[in-house]
């Protein structure tokens, strides 16, 4: 998305306009008012006496609210600045716009104010893939309002537009006659409401009143731990992360008004199993609410049957939920779609980590059935080759996902010479997650479900998996773990960042950790900003290839966690320093991914061209990095603090960290000279 577009959002609803507040969407761009994956406005243009306006400035008041200051004339010279126009727009149940016109002249003025409105009711999938509509459009002119409608069989979506000032309404918009006294003001409030009839969830989810939003944001910020530190950029990044996370929260129809993180603007404002779980893990030391809601909502939608179209199996955690027309007519499988191989073991990982932080045994008992079904899925449904490894192969060959791991683009899994393996594919990090799920599941079984026999069985399976994994995935001559095993059980031997996730999950034998760390921090993977998804020198390496060379902040935050797990504090601090330096270059808002170019080459991190921003797990990355730098680790009823900070951070305090201990403060001082480390590493 172009940078001069203005975006405001609230969970599932967002508006993208140009800098004068107008919307004129083409079929393939993502400007407009979107809610629940449908574009409800594709045209929204303001004119005075038939003329468009020019922006003077745009104030981003909050993530859900913005203010446009406009004047007449479209050139660079403002010939007649006797009028000012202010559009103040906020999202929530569609959007609300306060339109104010100020007359600065000593003479009265009469104006024709027109707002042109239209909607293509495009499904977000249609916008992404430029597809044609199959239904019929209509416009109904009511008493003081205009209803734009779209109908295809029983499917109906509507946009209702109304104004407080008297207006002449036609099928394409509203026209006002504004008579303004000298130095006078004219005002009208415009309300645009989205309609999803016949669906209980729609109205409920839209019920968040605009006036509560400011209050909710303040409460959200108040309840988060307070960060005090010498580094101003870090303070900014922390605040930006909290605010963006608040913006990305949404209440899916199943969550009883509670919220979980949507994946990211503009394409992914919906519940994603994987993204919601990773973001909830990152945010746990700061807020446990996201984790609790994610666990509940994903639990409700857990798979219960075999369905090839949705790649659904009993016990499988869903990948992606969509509400648009193509999903409704089963032209897309997202109702929900289950094609992720990692979300299910990660669900158990999150449940355990959540309990370790919060002590909320009640939820762990409530979700016992779901957690057991998830553990059962790993062995019963996901071992596609019968070799004891979790693998994936889509059954929906038309619209399902080929790669069902977080690196889900078509070319992400390759041999070192660049060839692509066949299916099924057993990527390495999946085995790590499965191992961790079994170990953590065993703890829950023993301590909370009171089933020691099940705990013992899981521990036995975990130990066996770890032993086999360290034998079968280890690329002995180069000392790292292969990216995957192919359908024949051979190593897909490219060197990748997935090695860091293996440290995080604990599946790496102690004796192999040092070699793995050497690769992660070595010149082929570490760019100076962070660890590349694929190592330089691999056949498919490309510094701006989506999953084949870029640096992902989310990926790096989990790698840092893995490094801490194996005792590599300094290396974790170097990754934290690199990613947080990059955040500073992006004004505190980390993109989904940025280029894998060597840091000394570009000086600034190069943003990946179509990256989503804000994106939930990038927003969560600085939070997890704060955890790894401070070495926060729940231990029984206590929180252990073991700081290892880069010198650039200086003094750092994180106050009122919530958890089963109540609230605890953590302090640290930067003692690790990452600059020196980098200079040393750069030498051959």
């Amino acid at each position, binding site marked *: 998305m172009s940078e001069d577009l203005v975006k405001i959002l609230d969970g599932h609803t967002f508006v993208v306009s140009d800098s004068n507040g107008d919307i004129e969407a083409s079929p393939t761009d993502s400007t407009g008012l979107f809610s629940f994956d449908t574009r409800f406005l594709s045209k929204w243009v303001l004119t005075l006496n038939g003329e468009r306006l020019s922006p003077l400035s745009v104030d981003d008041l909050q993530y859900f609210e913005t203010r446009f200051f406009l004047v007449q004339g479209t050139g660079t010279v403002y010939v007649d600045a006797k009028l000012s126009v202010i559009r103040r727009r906020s999202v929530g149940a569609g959007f609300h716009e306060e339109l104010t016109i100020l007359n600065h002249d000593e003479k009265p003025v009469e104006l024709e104010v027109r707002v042109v409105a239209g909607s293509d009711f495009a499904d977000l999938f249609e916008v992404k893939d430029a597809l044609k509509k199959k239904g019929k459009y209509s416009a109904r002119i009511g008493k003081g309002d205009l209803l734009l409608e779209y109908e295809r*069989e*029983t*499917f*109906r979506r509507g946009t209702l537009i109304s104004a407080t000032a008297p207006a002449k309404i036609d099928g394409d918009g509203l026209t006002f006659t504004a008579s303004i006294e000298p130095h006078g003001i004219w005002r009208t409030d415009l309300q645009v409401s989205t309609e999803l*009839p*016949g*669906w*209980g*969830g729609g109205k*409920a989810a839209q019920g968040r009143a605009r006036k509560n939003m400011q209050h909710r944001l303040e409460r959200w910020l108040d309840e988060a731990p307070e960060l005090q530190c010498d580094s101003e950029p870090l303070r900014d990044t922390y605040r930006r992360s909290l605010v963006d996370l608040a913006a990305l929260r949404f209440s899916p*129809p*199943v*969550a*009883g008004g509670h919220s979980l993180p949507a994946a990211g603007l503009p394409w992914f404002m919906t519940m994603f199993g994987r993204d919601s779980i990773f973001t909830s893990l990152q945010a746990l030391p700061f807020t446990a609410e996201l984790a609790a809601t994610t666990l509940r909502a994903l639990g*409700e*939608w857990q798979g*219960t*049957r*075999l*369905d*090839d*179209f*949705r790649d*659904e*199996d*009993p016990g499988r955690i869903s990948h992606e939920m969509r*509400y*648009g027309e193509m*999903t*409704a*007519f*089963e032209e897309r499988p997202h*109702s*929900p779609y289950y094609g992720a191989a990692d979300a299910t073991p990660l669900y158990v990982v999150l449940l355990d980590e959540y309990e370790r932080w919060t002590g909320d045994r009640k939820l762990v008992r*409530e979700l016992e*059935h779901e957690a057991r079904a998830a553990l059962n899925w790993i*062995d*019963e*449904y*996901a*071992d*596609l080759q*019968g070799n004891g490894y979790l693998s994936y192969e889509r*059954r929906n060959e038309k619209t399902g996902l080929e790669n069902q791991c977080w690196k889900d683009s078509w070319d992400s899994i390759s041999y070192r010479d660049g060839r692509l393996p066949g299916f099924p594919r057993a990527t390495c990090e999946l085995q790590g997650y499965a191992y961790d799920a079994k170990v953590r599941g065993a703890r829950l079984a023993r301590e909370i479900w009171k089933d020691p026999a099940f705990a013992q069985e899981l521990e036995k399976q975990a130990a066996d998996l770890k032993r086999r994994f360290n034998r079968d995935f280890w690329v002995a001559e180069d000392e790292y773990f292969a990216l995957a095993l192919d359908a024949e059980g051979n190593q897909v031997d490219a060197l990748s960042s997935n090695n860091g996730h293996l440290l995080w999950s604990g599946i790496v034998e102690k004796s192999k950790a040092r070699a793995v760390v050497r690769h992660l921090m070595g010149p082929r993977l570490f760019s100076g900003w962070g660890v590349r998804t694929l190592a330089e020198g691999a056949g498919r390496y490309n510094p701006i290839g989506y999953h084949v060379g870029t640096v992902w902040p989310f990926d790096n935050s989990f790698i840092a966690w893995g490094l801490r797990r194996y005792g590599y504090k300094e290396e974790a601090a170097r990754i934290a320093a690199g990613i947080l330096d990059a955040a500073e270059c992006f004004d505190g808002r980390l993109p989904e991914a940025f280029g894998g170019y060597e840091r000394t080459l570009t000086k600034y991190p190069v943003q990946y061209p179509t990256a989503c921003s804000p994106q939930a797990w990038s927003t969560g990355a600085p939070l997890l990095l704060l955890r790894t730098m401070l070495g926060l680790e729940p231990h029984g009823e206590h929180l252990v603090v073991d700081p290892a900070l880069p010198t650039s951070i200086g003094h750092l305090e994180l106050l009122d960290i919530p958890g089963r201990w109540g609230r605890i403060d953590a302090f640290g001082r930067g003692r690790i000279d990452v600059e020196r480390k980098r200079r040393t590493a750069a030498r051959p």
Partner: protein
Amino acid sequence: MATTADATAKFFDDLSRRGHEPLLERVTASFRFDLVDGGKTDRWLVAVNKGDLAVSRQNRKADCVLHADRKLFDRLAGGEQNAMAAVLRGEAVLDGDATRLVLFQRLFPGPAASRKVGRAAREPGGRHE
């Protein structure tokens, strides 16, 4: 496998016979299904109490009511159509708490033609047939 025409009756008969459903152990709520069949409306009431099921034909107030054509429900009950997609399409209309339907839809079967995967695919006599 039941023919499509009586898939609805078979579905509710099965629930009634089952008496208890582990997938709904967290649920205590009542569901009513108002199914339009030509000129008349057939009603089923399923009262769930921590997974215990009581099925009747009573016309009583319920926490969640699903309005649909009987033919559509036959297809949901027979695994030929997906309940969530039908609601998104406006072909089935929901009254009350959507959360509850999400839980209830767990009971609908998947398409009969779906392939076996994992252990079941390797062991024809395995658990999931």
